[in-house]
């Protein structure tokens, strides 16, 4: 009977799919990580727990571990709520100029982190514009405050990470029909309560996912803690890791470094589990079979004050650093007072002159288009298989794909070298651009996985069921119903992967090869030359290009949104 056969083939297909999926995950994700594990548990060629013992035996490491955790938690606890409030304001309310704010608030994400860090020292450092201004204002002989230390690291990290959450949340809030909020309003809840009692918990999947991303980003980040933390005696695990790799020349350096990285992996794994645990129920359908209209919530008397607050934030956090970078890129040389005669466009000319720069733009743009598209597609399929239990052990997939993002770039870089330096299956990708592509795929897979999984949790299953009862088969349903409804998750996942793929540094610098320089590497080298103004110009160029892309993408997006609004089309 055809029924029976179809039933049997289902089972065998499941086995096939499982083998395929885990095969790929094994090669791409687990194999490199295994190198780290072996490195961590090896001493002069033999298995040993020496590294681990040494790690836990050294209270500096433990302190660093504590700091990393504190940092991660603090940053997550600040950045995510901030992002949620902003998302709600710019998407669901009648805030003034919300379209503009919506773009502006993402800009910090477009500035390469190490340049961002430099910009912040220019702003808030001892000789930063702000401090200098205040000093002159109050006639102080020493700077008013310092960004060196835990406070500074947290501040800048928050500013650096909130866009991750904002990008995810602002999109998923779009799918939330008005009626859930309206029901709370009519029950007498004020705007704040609506946000806390309804929006936050209903969007929990997206909130938790973005929190997870922010947390992992923070604990595995090197640039900011190194630049702002070390001077303030605030040492985190990643700084230690770099110390072991760079500073000591003792043969166990790498081993201990990877050992520490494994600790980060474990922490990230826990975060992943917490996130999964928080959102294990199906209580979050915001996209249901009954569409609700989406009137923006009216802020009433708060409208103007809130607009001003957001504007101030944008001014300080977004345009502040941009301005700092712009000024730097226009001054003839560092440290010269800001006066017309010190201004020049020479650095931009220098930049345009460098063949290297153009080459790296080409390389990076290529990577930044291919990689996100690939992994977003892959993520859709993976999440689909996982949700429909088409693979055995589906619960492990999430953990596996988030591993490579949890360790500092330099470490995963080392792992990638060890994995791919020799030809695998006859193909050698080492010293080609493809090792970079591969590394990015492995490292950024977590983004689309998390965002798509989250927005899938918000689709009411009846919508897919309706397609199936209409006679559509699995992937048909995926294409016709799920994918369009996943729009938010897909686009945010793509964007989250796009930026780092464009400007990634720590990983690329280990894996690039002559001829395959990336924007990050080149910008970094230019910086190293002491050609700071040129680096500034470089950063401005990057931001400009990304903004233009974003505009186009936005235009396109706008267009959808506009005719969406014209037809008052939206999900809920």
């Amino acid at each position, binding site marked *: 009977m055809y029924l029976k056969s179809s039933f049997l083939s289902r089972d065998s297909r499941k086995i096939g799919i499982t083998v395929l999926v885990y095969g790929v995950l094994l090669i791409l994700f687990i194999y490199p990580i295994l190198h780290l594990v072996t490195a961590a548990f090896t001493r002069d060629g033999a298995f040993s727990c020496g590294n681990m013992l040494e790690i836990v035996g050294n209270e*500096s490491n433990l302190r660093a571990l504590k700091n990393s955790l504190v940092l991660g938690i603090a940053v997550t606890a600040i950045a995510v709520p901030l992002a949620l409030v902003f998302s709600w304001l710019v998407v669901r309310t009648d805030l003034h100029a919300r379209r503009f704010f919506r773009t502006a608030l993402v800009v910090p994400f477009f500035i390469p982190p190490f340049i961002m860090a430099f910009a912040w*020292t*220019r702003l808030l*450092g*001892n*000789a*930063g514009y702000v401090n200098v201004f205040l000093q002159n204002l109050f006639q102080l002989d*020493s*700077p008013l405050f*310092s960004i*060196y230390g835990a406070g500074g690291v947290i501040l800048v990290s928050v500013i650096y990470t909130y866009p991750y959450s904002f990008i995810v949340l602002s999109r998923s809030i779009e799918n939330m029909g008005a009626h859930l909020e309206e029901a709370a309003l009519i029950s007498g809840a004020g705007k704040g309560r609506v946000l806390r009692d309804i929006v936050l918990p209903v969007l929990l999947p997206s909130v938790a996912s973005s929190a997870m991303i922010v947390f992992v980003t923070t604990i595995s980040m090197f640039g900011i803690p*190194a*630049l702002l933390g*070390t*001077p303030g*005696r605030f*040492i985190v695990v990643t*700084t230690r890791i*770099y*110390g072991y*790799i*760079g*500073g*000591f*020349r*003792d043969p166990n350096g*790498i081993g201990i470094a990877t050992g520490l990285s494994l600790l980060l992996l474990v922490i990230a794994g826990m975060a992943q589990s917490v996130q999964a645990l928080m959102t294990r129920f199906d209580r979050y359908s915001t996209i249901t079979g009954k569409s609700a209209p989406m009137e923006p919530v009216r802020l009433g008397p708060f409208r103007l004050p809130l607009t001003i607050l957001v504007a101030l934030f944008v001014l300080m956090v977004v345009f502040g650093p941009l301005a700092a970078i712009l000024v730097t890129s226009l001054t*003839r*040389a*560092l*440290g*010269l007072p800001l006066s017309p005669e010190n201004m020049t466009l020479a650095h931009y000319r220098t930049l345009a002159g460098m063949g*290297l720069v153009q080459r790296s733009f080409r390389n990076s743009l290529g990577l930044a288009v291919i990689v996100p598209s690939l992994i977003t597609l892959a993520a859709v399929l993976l999440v689909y298989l996982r949700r429909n239990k088409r693979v055995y052990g589906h619960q492990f997939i999430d953990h596996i794909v988030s591993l490579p993002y949890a360790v500092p770039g*330099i470490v995963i*870089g*080392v792992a990638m*070298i*060890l994995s791919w*330096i*020799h030809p695998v299956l006859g193909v050698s990708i080492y*010293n080609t651009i493809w090792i970079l592509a591969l590394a990015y795929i492995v490292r950024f897979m977590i983004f689309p996985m998390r965002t798509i999984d989250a927005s899938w949790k918000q689709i009411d299953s009846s919508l897919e069921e309706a397609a199936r009862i209409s006679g559509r088969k699995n992937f048909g349903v995926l294409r016709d119903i799920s994918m369009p409804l996943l729009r938010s998750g897909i686009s945010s996942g793509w964007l989250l992967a796009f930026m780092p793929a464009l400007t990634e540094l720590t990983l690329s*610098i*280990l894996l690039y*090869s*002559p*001829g395959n320089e990336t924007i990050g590497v080149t910008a970094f*080298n*230019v*910086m*190293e*030359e*002491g*050609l*700071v103004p040129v680096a500034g110009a470089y950063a401005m160029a990057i931001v400009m290009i990304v903004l233009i892309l974003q505009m186009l993408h936005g235009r396109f997006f706008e267009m959808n949104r506009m005719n969406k609004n014209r037809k008052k089309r939206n999900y809920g």
Partner: protein
Amino acid sequence: KEESSNGISGTITLYTSETLTDVQSYVDQFELLNPGTKVEIFRLGTTELTARLMTELQAGETPADVIWFADMALFEQFAQDGRLLKIQPAEAANIPESFVYFDGMAYELRLIYQIIAYNTNLVTEKIDSWFDLTDERYKGKVGSASPFVSGATVTQVASVINDDRLGWDFYKKLAANNPVVSGGNGGIARGIASGEYAIGLTIDFMARAQQEQGSPVGYCYQKEGAVYVPTPAGVMAATDNPELSTAFINYLMSVPGQLQLQANGYMPVNKNVALPKGVPSAADIPVLETDWKNLAENRESILNEYAKIFGID
């Protein structure tokens, strides 16, 4: 396939932490002088460079033919492990004996020192001593690279603790002035130029570069002695093109190469090449004695001690 006059040809890869444009200028000239040759530059900061090199070696192969960066200890280790090729470039005759390391496995190509630089807008007093760094006036405005990032600073530590005028006490005093210990020398130079730090320890040519760009930067060779930062260059034993590799190092020691270096603001080693203007000769620069042996043996404990003093452990 065309061959250059002296019969060398092919492609080699150079691993270096020298600044990119400088290296590029040497390579361009070299390729011009030796048509049919190609030198691929792989430029990284010392930390990443060593990390990559070590990893590659651990995995059993590296594309590197010539290596050139400021990590004497690593070179020493390589020399012992026989990872370096013993070469006799003709030009070696023109450079002082002291700059030939591990009898011909590595060579010094130009001299750099870690010195004290300062921002001329913020520092008006005459600066000439290590102890200017411990001056109350500059509390919180002193910058220094971290030994966990900068090989030069490791050398510095090994030298300072070896000098009885300074020693660990100096660092304790310095720490009391709570300096900013972070990143590499490049960052410190930038910081000084931008005024982030009033004064700090960095490499002389970096200070010079900032000066040339027009930044308000001054520098001095400490009267107690600057830190001489050896930056060896050598040929990997595993290279598949020893001739070209040797030729490249030979070029760097030759007059044209040294002139190029000098033009970039470095102190040449070739006795037939004059110093850049405004730069004292190596003879006139007091230098601290570096205890390489101690460093090689107690590197970890030394760095830990340093880290403890500056609270960056």
